[in-house]
């Protein structure tokens, strides 16, 4: 790690810079000064240098969907462990979801979390607040006071909305309050099962939730977004139809959408294991949906990737699938899984993956996701050649509910820098090396 008495300047040398936002793609040197990108060029030297020959440098990854379980379930994750997991996965900014205990639905909880994040988080962490009090879908939260207290956006994540009328008013009020809305689209009258309502569920004898539960809620949300003019982000799109609906509304509403690494790489086949580990919401879908989502991400219809990082205690996952809590860890494996399966599989260009993990979500949170000179030095260093196996021992998160446990993957984050400061460092002595 960097020593405290070192100057605030660092030159990362001979690194392969790839940034679709600025169009940079090639081996060069990057000078960081006072927490910002000061210069990108050749033959840069400085009092402190990192020889990054063979490594790739990207704008820091941004994850708009993280559950750090704070306050209330610090046994599963807290701000320190969650931000360490994010840093280990190359994320320099995240958005924390409000479905905690207590729920983040009052200004006093928001301001408390904002203060704790400043002290405890290794990465930039935006606090989202609930859209409705208690996530109950009835009373609007005090969005303007929440914003003044430091909330970045509003979401009832984890739950769909009780009715279209309620959602419409919430969008209108959020627009007045200048708050983006993140929507988990799910119709609870349809989503009555625990896995996708498909062949695997039928064979296993598990109650299924049909794709229509997501698709009808997504359609409603998009129509209302177009009508109200609210800034809406639809998270964890998992079906081909929902992705197509997002595409239809691309130019008709101020809407963006993400999908997750697991919906891009895993399918309902895992249901046959009957292992509670594989329960997630929205559920893993058939390969046709996985492929549709992948195509939508490749074509930019889905704007970016978010992990829905959802730590759970082992006693909540080591259960029959019907009784297990839904959710996967996401931060630490996101890039590697997508690089291994989609980029090395020839299905997604590396540049598009970086757009989807850095540039587009960085633009959405604002002021992140590009290597412009003068921008904050939020950077991710990756060794694309390193092979590693996901195991409980490799995970930094306090929980271990990763669906990729035991998978051998290629490409690994070796360094994460936030505002010029290394927050994750597997480069050994190289970070502190002097010329």
């Amino acid at each position: 790690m960097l020593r405290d008495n070192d100057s605030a300047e660092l030159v990362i040398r001979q690194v392969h810079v790839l940034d679709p936002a600025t169009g940079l793609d090639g081996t060069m040197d990057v000078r960081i000064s006072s927490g910002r990108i000061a210069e990108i060029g050749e033959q840069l030297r400085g009092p402190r240098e990192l020889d990054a020959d063979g490594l790739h440098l990207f704008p820091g990854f941004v994850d708009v969907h993280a559950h750090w379980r704070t306050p209330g379930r610090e046994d599963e994750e807290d701000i320190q462990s969650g931000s360490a997991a994010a840093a280990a996965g190359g994320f320099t900014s995240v958005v924390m979801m409000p479905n905690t205990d207590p729920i983040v639905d009052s200004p006093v909880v928001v301001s408390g979390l904002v203060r704790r994040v400043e002290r405890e988080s290794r990465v930039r962490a935006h606090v989202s607040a609930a859209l409705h009090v208690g996530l109950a879908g009835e009373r609007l939260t005090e969005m303007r006071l929440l914003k003044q207290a430091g909330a970045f956006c509003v979401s009832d994540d984890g739950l769909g909305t009780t009715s279209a009328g309620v959602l419409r008013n919430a969008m209108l009020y959020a627009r007045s309050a200048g708050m983006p809305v993140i929507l988990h689209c799910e119709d609870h009258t349809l989503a009555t099962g625990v896995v996708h309502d498909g062949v695997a569920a039928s064979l296993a004898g598990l109650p299924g939730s049909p794709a229509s539960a997501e698709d009808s809620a997504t359609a409603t949300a998009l129509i209302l977004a177009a009508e109200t003019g609210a800034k809406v982000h639809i998270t964890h799109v998992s079906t081909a139809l929902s992705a197509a609906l997002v595409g239809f509304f691309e130019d008709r509403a101020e809407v963006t959408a993400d999908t997750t690494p697991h919906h891009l790489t895993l399918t309902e086949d895992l249901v046959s294991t009957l292992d509670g580990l594989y329960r997630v919401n929205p559920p893993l879908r058939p390969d046709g949906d996985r492929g549709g989502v992948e195509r939508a991400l490749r074509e930019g219809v889905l704007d970016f990737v978010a992990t829905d990082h959802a730590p759970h205690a082992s006693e909540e996952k080591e259960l029959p699938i019907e009784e297990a809590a839904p959710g996967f860890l996401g931060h630490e494996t996101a890039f590697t899984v997508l690089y291994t399966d989609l980029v090395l599989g020839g299905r997604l260009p590396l540049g598009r993956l970086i757009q989807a993990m850095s540039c587009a979500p960085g633009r959405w949170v604002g002021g992140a996701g590009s290597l412009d000179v003068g921008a904050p030095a939020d950077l991710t260093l990756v060794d694309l050649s390193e092979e590693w196996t996901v195991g409980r021992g490799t995970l930094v998160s306090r929980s271990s509910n990763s669906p990729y446990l035991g998978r051998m993957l290629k490409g690994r984050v070796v360094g994460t820098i936030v505002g010029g400061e290394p927050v994750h460092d597997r480069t050994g002595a190289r970070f502190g090396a002097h010329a």
Partner: protein
Amino acid sequence: METRSLLTLEDVGREEIREILDLARAFAEGRFVDSLENKTVCLAFFEASTRTAVSFELAARRSGALVISLSEKGSAIVKGESLIDTVVTLDRLGADVIVLRHQAAGAAALASRHTSAPVINAGDGCGQHPTQALLDLYTLSDALGGFEALQGRRVAIVGDVLHSRVARSVIPGFLQAGMEISLVAPLTLLPPDADALGLRVLCSVDEALEWGADVIYMLRLQRERMTGALIPSVAEYARFYGVSRRHLVSGALVMHPGPVNRGVEISGDVVLDASSLIPDQVAAGVCVRSAVLALSTGAAQSVAA
């Protein structure tokens, strides 16, 4: 004798407004005391009202009219008689003018199509409340030095525009007076086409004062809007859409059609402050409604002659 209904302020031009305000001034000065002698004024209030009903009744009585009051209690209205049947009955019994308050927009216009007597709309649902707008223009003219002095002044209309018949009448009224209007409300309390109508939308009373509002026109927030579906809380509403003492340093005048929710749209110490025109609005109700009754029955022509 020419009679005329007053259904919506959208139909009332600038010259006609000036005429009504001038006549109201004459009534206020004690002229035309018996202008409605031998006239029968029917007050048909299908919906509860305090100040509008009382001021219409006073306006009629002070001008010497015979007043018949139907309220929802103690009339055929509670027996389920339809609006049309009620007004037709009043018409045939010899009403010279019917003053109608009803819970549904368009009720006054519907009634007027079935009566020979003129109908004055005393508030129909979320539709119109034209005499309120006229008394507001009267009050404001008084405060600012005459009707002509309203030209170019800025008024911010704050609160539940969406459900407000007052807003739908004062907006055309203020526009006829040459005033600039902004609406201050969350989008949940605004009609969807507010900006399409060319009205500026602002986000707080503070913003309205920065914009240079000369007048802050507060609307009443109905209790049933306070349950959290349209606004999150009274605290947040009061913080951004309420007038409190700190806003008064700007010198802006404060108006409210009443009844006021103290602590919601107006903090208690503002209601009767010197910059509040609220008591003047109530006072203006009588002379303005006398003028409207006189004009609608044709009595004004005979007193002027």
